């Protein structure tokens, strides 16, 4: 059975009146996603919606929409800190990767990725993560593992920056200007454990 949060009634956003304005604005904007993408096409976004949901094991639409918005924004900015020689810039890498994914799905299943059964999707993702996806012809110009890693990194960045996810893992969140006063005990606003699997 799928594990659940140990802090079901905790909501880190309940404390936002204690935060500085800049942080509060940033976190509120994550709860209001736009879905207006400047880099991703509609089909690309739909493929990523399925792909990223499985990467982070969560299908809640508003959270995955924030993941997609973040990916779109990152790709639009063109910033990527580093890449290996011979690896295309992130924009090209993701676009070509999604193209290959679509072709591979059509060739094997005659379906789009987001129409596949979840098990089929996971199987294909596992193969890409190991650089073993076929047909070879389709994936020839895409470094599969780099493609997989790029999407995983961007998805993690967004997913584990979403306040709802913070609440579930019991992260106490922003603490300025008040700070954390108690080191050994919990501060009154921190998540308290309500259930825990033995």
């Amino acid at each position, binding site marked *: 059975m*799928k*594990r*659940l*949060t*140990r802090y079901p009634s905790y909501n880190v956003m309940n404390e936002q009146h204690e*935060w*500085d304005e*800049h*942080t509060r604005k*940033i*976190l509120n904007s994550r709860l209001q996603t736009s879905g207006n993408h400047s880099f991703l096409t509609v089909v690309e976004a739909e493929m990523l919606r399925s792909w990223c949901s*499985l*990467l*982070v*094991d*969560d299908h809640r639409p508003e959270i995955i929409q924030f993941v997609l918005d*973040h990916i779109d924004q990152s790709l639009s900015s063109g*910033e*990527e*800190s*580093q*890449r*290996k*020689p011979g690896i295309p*810039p992130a924009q090209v890498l993701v676009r070509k990767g999604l193209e290959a994914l679509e072709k591979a799905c059509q060739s094997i299943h005659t379906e789009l990725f987001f129409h596949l059964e979840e098990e089929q999707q*996971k199987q294909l*993702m596992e193969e890409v*993560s*190991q650089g073993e996806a076929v047909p070879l012809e389709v994936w020839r110009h895409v470094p599969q*593992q780099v493609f*997989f*890693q790029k999407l*995983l*990194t961007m998805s*993690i*960045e*967004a*997913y*584990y*920056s979403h306040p709802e*996810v*913070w609440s579930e*893992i*019991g*992260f*106490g*969140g*922003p*603490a*300025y*200007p*008040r*700070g*954390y*006063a108690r*080191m*050994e005990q919990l501060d009154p606003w*921190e*998540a308290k*454990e309500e259930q825990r699997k033995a």
Partner: protein
Amino acid sequence: MKRKYEGETVDVVIVGAGAAGGVLAKELSEAGMRVVVLEAGPWRDPQHDFASDELAMQQLGWQDTRIVDGADPLQMGHNNCGKGVGGGTVHFTGVFLRFHETDFNAKSLDGVGEDWPIGYADLAPYYDKVEKEIAVSGPKHYPWGSFHGPYPYPERDPISLNAQLFAKGCEKLGIRWVVSPLAILSAPFEDRPPCINRGFCTQGCMPNAKFSTLIVHIPKAIQAGAEVLPDCMVTQVNMGKDGRATGVTFVHNGTAYEQRAKLVIISAYAVETPRLLLNSANAQFPNGLANRSGWVGKAFMTHSSNDVYARFDHDVRLYKGTPVLATTQDFYHLSGEVARGYTLHAHGVRPLSFAKGISKSDGNRPVWGSKLHEAMLDYNAYARITMVGEVLPSPDNTVTLCDEKDLNGMPRAKVTFSYGDNDKLLIDHAVSTMKGILQAAGGKPEFVVPDTAHLMGGCRMGSDPDSSVVNSYGQTHDIPNLFVCDASIFVTSGAGNPTNTVMALASRTADYIKKRASRMEL
């Protein structure tokens, strides 16, 4: 752009406003020199531009693309390069250690690496000065190295649960530990408050409890008359026919400008410093400036910085408090099969870094989907230790220019890095020690995350102009009025966090420049 010294020749132009550039700007402008500091990144205001958020604050890192190569290509950006006034000091953990005497003579002592042209004693007075200037907090007695305390300010109290577990594990195993020396205030100092344990040191300190040159040295430099220009990327060191530097060319909002200066100091860190020297090649210096030896960009180093996460049957809450609050240097100088050594820190972490880290814990098999999700549900139950491991210099680890260019038309830096055999043995040794400490504290080690931190070398100092780029004061052997002063002049990496040493070296260089300039010798 409004400029104070447009069309003028100033005494000093400093490229980069980080740990070294900040110290130099303050020292030299307070000595009455006319100083201009050019910083590639923005000028941020901690209370309004920083946020308690990992994702938003990734922008503190240098995000322009570098090409990374070698057997162990580096992850660049937030964990090792700053961009903006204050540079890396804006988002470092504040760990403030001195190098040990043994760091300056690896070759003589252990037959590996190289010897520095200076010893601990040359830096000691500058360590004293820097630590006092920013009120470093630390223990009354520090058991390792040549400096045994007391630190200017008392050690931090209380410490996080993660640090307490580290202490417990160490004590069970007979390993000595201390509350870490930190450039983070334990009591008020000047106009700054003590730390409130917000925990976001690497996202930029909002209360100003953590030192950075953004809030300490740069304001003092400006007070003394220095001009600091943000968002100005230096693309070229300009040279005169007489073989002396005449200033620099920089780009601001797409337009190129020149700043003429009697003295040019490059403090742009271990990637951008060699990149700039190499890109400034001209007919007289076809292989790049200060590169007669061919050592510009060579012997580039990082620290191994692997993390071990262990799960406990109670909450630890890695997000609370200053990330690093407990340290051991019992393994600083190993003997036997592994040469040199490492420092260990109890090291807190927020969710994004935690998730990114453990996703990479299984080599070429990324951790994702339900496995990642389940581990993250127990984020609060994990403790973590991080190593700072010495990486030996190798001429094969380099910073070079590649064909691809950035938006300013400047070739991108290519950073090539591979671990050597000793580096790998050292990591294994440290990982095993970290697991042991966490187990002794009652935890079950679950994830080992390969990581690196801190960049050093690439313009190493030395007495021999044929095998080094600068002398011990950062003065290039080839061009008397061109200095390099940052971690790129390190000869070896040491086994502890380098910022204190970078700043002590900068302070020493500043003294040298002041003395020589007053005698008109530069």
